């Protein structure tokens, strides 16, 4: 084996190389989650347990006069469980990224001829895949326990789409915190904040039935529109307006979080490590 002289590849070749790297890192993210059970727990096990308990515990809520028309409380809760799992998956991705930085694995990526952003995008690609997985999981669980997806197959497709995109949008926040702090425990501290955002939305209860000030906040919370986008295919039919609102909210959150990630990355590269 003698050293070969590397010639500079053109822009198309570089793009292809970066995409391959993003794919490989995404696959690694997913594999990591399955190989370490305690990463799986918050993403699938806890949300499923909570779904079961909350549905049974607060199930009589459907008897309340202002409660929207649904086949059952489970049908209502399903979207909340999926979004909860997705947000936690995004947080887990951020933790894993911080661990990569802590153990120096990130250096392997930074010393290679790939775009710096591939470290973020690779991680988010994995989170999106996990998001899709959780969506499928909860759809199956829901159907198994008696829920009905009113909008059928197109509805399912929409749900998986919204959940995967949300995973990227919210995952960017975890990534930004990871890059800025370089510490896994800091990212882990975001865990309660995820629940605060969920409580201040219509994830677990209809927005019109929340107590103030949660009610008002929920009306403006982008997460509410995203949850609606996932919920309507189950309990009714996704209207074009809801579709646009959900997509727009995801885009808004995504733009902010990915922007913050990019800034945090640039700062880290500039200050060196």
């Amino acid at each position, binding site marked *: 084996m003698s050293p070969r002289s590397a010639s500079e590849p053109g822009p198309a070749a570089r793009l292809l190389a970066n995409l391959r790297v993003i794919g490989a890192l995404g696959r690694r993210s997913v594999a990591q989650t399955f190989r370490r059970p305690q990463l799986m727990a918050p993403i699938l096990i806890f949300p499923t347990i909570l779904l079961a308990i909350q549905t049974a515990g607060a199930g009589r809520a459907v008897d309340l006069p202002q409660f929207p028309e649904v086949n059952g409380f489970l049908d209502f809760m399903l979207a909340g469980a999926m979004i909860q799992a997705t947000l936690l998956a995004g947080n887990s991705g951020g933790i894993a990224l911080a661990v990569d930085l802590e153990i120096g694995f990130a250096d392997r990526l930074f010393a290679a001829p790939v775009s710096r952003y591939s470290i973020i995008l690779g991680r988010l690609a994995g989170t999106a895949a996990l998001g899709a997985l959780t969506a499928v999981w909860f759809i199956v669980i829901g159907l198994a326990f008696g829920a009905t997806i009113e909008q059928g197959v197109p509805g399912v497709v929409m749900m998986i789409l919204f959940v995967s995109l949300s995973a990227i949008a919210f995952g960017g926040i975890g990534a930004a915190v990871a890059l800025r702090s370089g510490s896994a425990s800091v990212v882990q501290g975001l865990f309660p904040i995820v629940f605060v955002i969920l*409580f201040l939305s219509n994830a677990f209860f209809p927005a019109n039935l929340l107590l103030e000030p949660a009610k008002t906040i929920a009306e403006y919370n982008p997460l509410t529109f995203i949850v609606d986008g996932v919920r309507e295919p189950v309990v009714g039919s996704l209207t074009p307006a809801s579709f646009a609102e959900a997509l727009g909210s995801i885009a808004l959150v995504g733009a902010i979080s990915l922007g913050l990630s990019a800034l945090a990355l640039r700062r880290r590269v500039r200050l060196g490590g």
Partner: protein
Amino acid sequence: MSPAADIATIRALVRRAANEILRVPGAAIPGVLAPTIFFLGLSAVFGNLIELRGFDVDSYLSWLIPISLLQGAGFTGAATGVNLARDIEQGWFDRLLVSPAPRPVLLAGLVLSASLRSLIPAAVLLTVGFALGAHWPGLLGLAIAVLLVMGMGTLAACWSVTVALRFKSQSAAPLMQAVMLVAILTTTAYAPLELLTGWLQEVARYNPITQVVDAIRQGFVGEGVTLAGTWPGVVALAALVAALAALALRGMRRTAY
């Protein structure tokens, strides 16, 4: 070993656990604030459940207080097990095992700190709760709550210590936390027994923790504190603590290879 030595051992272990918090105070904050955050969140989200027929309560906030108190104790106790698992992984626990301190004394030292620390999230929770208008339980009601919270902390610590000794790894942390969470939520957590649906009603009916929840709740909601309302919870908790302490002790004895 003399009683004086035992007490000194226990004191040393409790002090070490306290040092943990002081050394990295930032790490303790999520654990201390989380029960309050969930308390606020759940009461805002499910608050209107009290409108249901059969739910004769004027404040969901007051209804939830026992649950959040127990959750705080549950998390604190789980943290004891996580710390122990870390100590086992790093070899510090071997030092304790090799010392002449009797096993029950070691267990007491580990677990006692948890029961005391459970009062921290409890204090935060009660302060916030009362500020938001939760019903004042009276001194007796408060005393019962404090007692049962400390008991819950002890229970959670015994459980998580058992898990830690069994798996000897921090990756068992979710197991320690999840079981506590499920135990506390499969009670009359969200609503009275009659309003729970399906399987949950049956489970809550027989779950001993339901007695504990009801015992704490009588001060905050309803008629007031009575002996009849208190003793089932105390007995249930005492029995559980005894059972799990025995389990933890057995685990500790087995660990001495």
